[in-house]
């Protein structure tokens, strides 16, 4: 009965394994409404913020919050202490949406039982962490793009000026893109801890994504660049005065945190049952 061809087991390379896992995740991402809903929300929020729809008469709030249309995308300077909504309501909000989206995405892996299929065929749990991190980062970059489009339309509609140093603007936007990687790894890590209890994951991702711990720390220790070592700190640092150094800091920070969270997440997956 032994079939020799049947009993040949080729070792799949890391890239082959990852390609398989990414294939599933991206297929699901594009074939279910979750991403599209969040892209729409990401486009809508800056419009609502800038048009004063979040409070007061139309346009009245905007006048106080923003003096330039690009402030809808990034703060004018790195302010960790929030003095008004204008300092806060920018593209960093994408990281909150991203946290919620990743929590729902991973939560459904566990809730549906599909995770059993993944872990049966993927002996290396790091594949799961890396794939989900990459998927989350991609989704957040896409949300950044729709946020930017929504913000630009809203800025134009409210008549705010678009005058800006193009280099700084590009660095700020790229910085936000780069930070998506670190945030996605954090959210993936949180979700492999709480698994199908994605209500807890969503709440935790929301708290961290809003930057409350860093804003709180800034209120105590002051507006210091030392806060850049944290994901929220670097995300704030990617502002309209950004330069090449900002990008380097964002890149280093994002990659280092991504590695840390991926290693910790893989350890947890290896040590804990997947139910």
């Amino acid at each position, binding site marked *: 009965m032994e079939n020799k061809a049947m009993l040949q*087991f080729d070792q799949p390379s890391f890239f082959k394994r990852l390609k398989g896992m990414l294939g599933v995740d991206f297929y699901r991402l594009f074939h279910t409404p979750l991403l599209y809903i969040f892209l729409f929300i990401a486009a809508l929020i800056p419009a609502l913020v800038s048009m004063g729809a979040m409070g007061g008469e139309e346009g009245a709030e905007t006048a106080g919050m923003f003096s330039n249309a690009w402030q809808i995308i990034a703060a004018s300077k790195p302010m960790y202490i929030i003095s008004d909504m204008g300092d806060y309501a920018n593209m960093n909000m994408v990281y909150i949406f991203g946290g919620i989206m990743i929590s729902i995405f991973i939560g459904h892996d566990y809730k549906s039982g599909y995770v059993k299929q993944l872990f049966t065929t993927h002996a290396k749990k790091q594949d799961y962490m890396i794939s989900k991190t990459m998927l989350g980062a991609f989704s957040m970059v896409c949300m950044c793009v729709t946020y930017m489009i929504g913000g630009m339309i809203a800025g134009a509609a409210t008549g705010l000026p678009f005058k800006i140093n193009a280099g700084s603007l590009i660095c700020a936007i790229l910085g936000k893109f780069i930070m998506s990687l670190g945030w996605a790894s954090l959210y993936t890590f949180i979700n492999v801890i709480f698994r199908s209890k994605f209500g807890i994951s969503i709440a935790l991702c929301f708290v961290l994504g809003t930057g409350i711990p860093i804003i709180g720390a800034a209120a105590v220790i002051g507006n210091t660049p030392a806060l850049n070592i944290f994901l929220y700190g670097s995300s704030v640092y990617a502002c309209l005065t950004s330069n090449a150094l900002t990008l380097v800091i964002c890149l280093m920070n994002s990659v280092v945190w991504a590695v840390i969270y991926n290693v910790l997440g893989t350890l947890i997956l290896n040590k804990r049952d997947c139910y």
Partner: protein
Amino acid sequence: MNAIEIKGLTKSFRGMHAVDSLNMTVPVGAIYGFIGENGSGKSTTEKLICGHLVPDKGEIKLFGKPYTDAGVRVRVGALIESAGCFPNSSVYANLMMQALNLGIKNRAEEIQRVLKIVRMEDNAKLKFKKCSLGMKQRIGIAMALLGNPALLILDEPINGLDTDGMRIMREIIVDITQNLGCTVLISSHILGELEKIATHYGIIRQGKLIQEMSAKEMDARSRVFVSLKTGDMQEAIKVLKSKFDDVRFEDDYIRVYDVEDTESIVKHLLDSGHKVSEVEKNKVGLEEYYIQLMSKKEEA
């Protein structure tokens, strides 16, 4: 070579041993019937083999390699508890995701192939949540069959299926072992169905494998008995006990164990003035063997 080789496997939940120093051997190409009562540790063992649970102790080898070997595990298909599909996605989308996961090249053809095996070709567009229980079980098998697995682990795949569904499932399992060379580990409470297909058995009780044997060994160990009915059953039992060692009244029949000569039993009864209305030669089946074994263990 053995498809599965387990030594001293232990897994506890909150201090309770679900699997306790379990040793198990599944030969390549076997249909291994994994039997045990509820909570005996069948599903836990299967989850440990699939890497869903982390063992406390012990060793699991699949085709001679550690179960954590990526090359082996990619060739394992499993249906444990449920199919593990996204309810709002179609049958096709769920299979496509699994095909992508396994890195299959001709995905569309492979999906058609497995759908054909499980006789679900016409339901590919159906949303998973709209499928009946039987269909969901078959989709689970189809998922497990993708990518030509060398080992299939099926946990209660015939639970909740109607007679026709059971027959289809039985045919599928036999087909994949005989034609594809796949090894199957299957657990089920429906021992009569298992008996029709299994080539090997493993009986687990309280987390320990208490018996492991091939279907041939099982057949050899099974006791032969003659079951019969007479007008006065109690008197007939007394008469039979005078000549035969093991005579019992079970399931409305008199059973004379370990005797193959039906004629001598009937003659003995007739000589004693008892008319025999029914007589049949039988062998203890898997179910009875299992019940007897469990009773012995209970008594011990």
